[in-house]
């Protein structure tokens, strides 16, 4: 059985193209770890694994063996959707709408230091 190594969404396929033909590996998974109760899961890296159970085991071995987290999620990289880098202007730039940035407001004297 062979798998296509998926390219992380929104990234160029250069790296994967370079190793194509050398390695027919397992699918890629993204790993999210929550360090403490009450805070969000944070993306910590990625790994290869044949299935979800194995991906969780590998996540434990690769990313959490020093007690880094209380909870681990693994998600198939192919299930993550992202905009193309060229579309960044539409998605993530504030486009001169400075009123969206709190720093543009003048703080009244009565408020004092914030």
């Amino acid at each position, binding site marked *: *059985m062979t798998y296509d190594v998926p390219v992380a969404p929104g990234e160029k396929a250069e790296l994967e193209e370079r190793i194509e033909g050398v390695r027919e*590996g*397992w699918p890629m998974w993204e790993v999210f770890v929550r360090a403490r109760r009450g805070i969000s899961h944070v993306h910590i890296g990625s*790994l*290869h*694994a*044949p*299935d979800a*159970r*194995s991906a969780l*085991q*590998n996540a*434990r*071995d*690769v990313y959490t*063996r020093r007690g880094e987290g209380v909870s681990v999620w693994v998600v198939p990289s192919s299930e993550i959707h992202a905009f193309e880098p060229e579309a960044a202007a539409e998605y993530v730039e504030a486009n001169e709408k400075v009123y969206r940035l709190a720093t543009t407001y003048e703080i009244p004297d009565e408020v004092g230091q914030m």
Partner: protein
Amino acid sequence: MSEQIVSSTPQGMPVVEMDSHLREVLSHADDNMVLAQRLGEWISYAPDLEIDIALGNIALDHLGVARALYTHAGEVEGEGRSEDDFAMRRTEREFLNLLLVEQPNGDFAQTIVRQFFFDVYQRLVWAELAESDDETLAGVAAKAGKEAAYHYEFSSSWMLRLGDGTEESHTRAQDAVDTLWRFTSELSEPYPEVWRSEVDAVFAETGLNIADDPYQRSGGREGFHTEHLGFLLAEMQWMDRSYPGMEW
């Protein structure tokens, strides 16, 4: 299943005399030391980077247990022997490990089947020893039990993945079972029925069969080993024997 044929201690060969508690501590220490050495042989050769790290982690868990038990064996014996004296300065005949753990890595399937048989055994060992009157041994067992639970999760899930995977993985896993089954009476005898029923429960899901071959090899616990242990010890002990007492 037909009657078991067990080949054990070669006739006329003396068994090393030892206090039974010391023998027990050393037996488990040697199991973990030898298996750690075997798993370490995978480093940089495993099928995948992630598996390389996983097998390395498991090897280090076994090495940690071995070190704690060798140190404790020195205390039980009371003759000032250190962990290095036990690990690096005993001969093949003085090692009391199970024959299973000294068997070569073979392919990945053989390593997984060996690990699975041993993990089922280790979980039973640590559960029993956690209740030991020897408080140090009980403490080591409690900690090792948690590690063994993860090793079992790793090896049993791989048994399922290989046995119920592709035709190739199934064939390799079945070959490994056929190769290693003859070394399992040493694991099942201390835990009549329990060891076997736990193995059977996982095998039922994998589609793998246990070989009908009734031939069983034993003798590891008396220091009578297969031809493989000597080579393993030669590699492991070479540095210390060439440069006695060296440190780095």
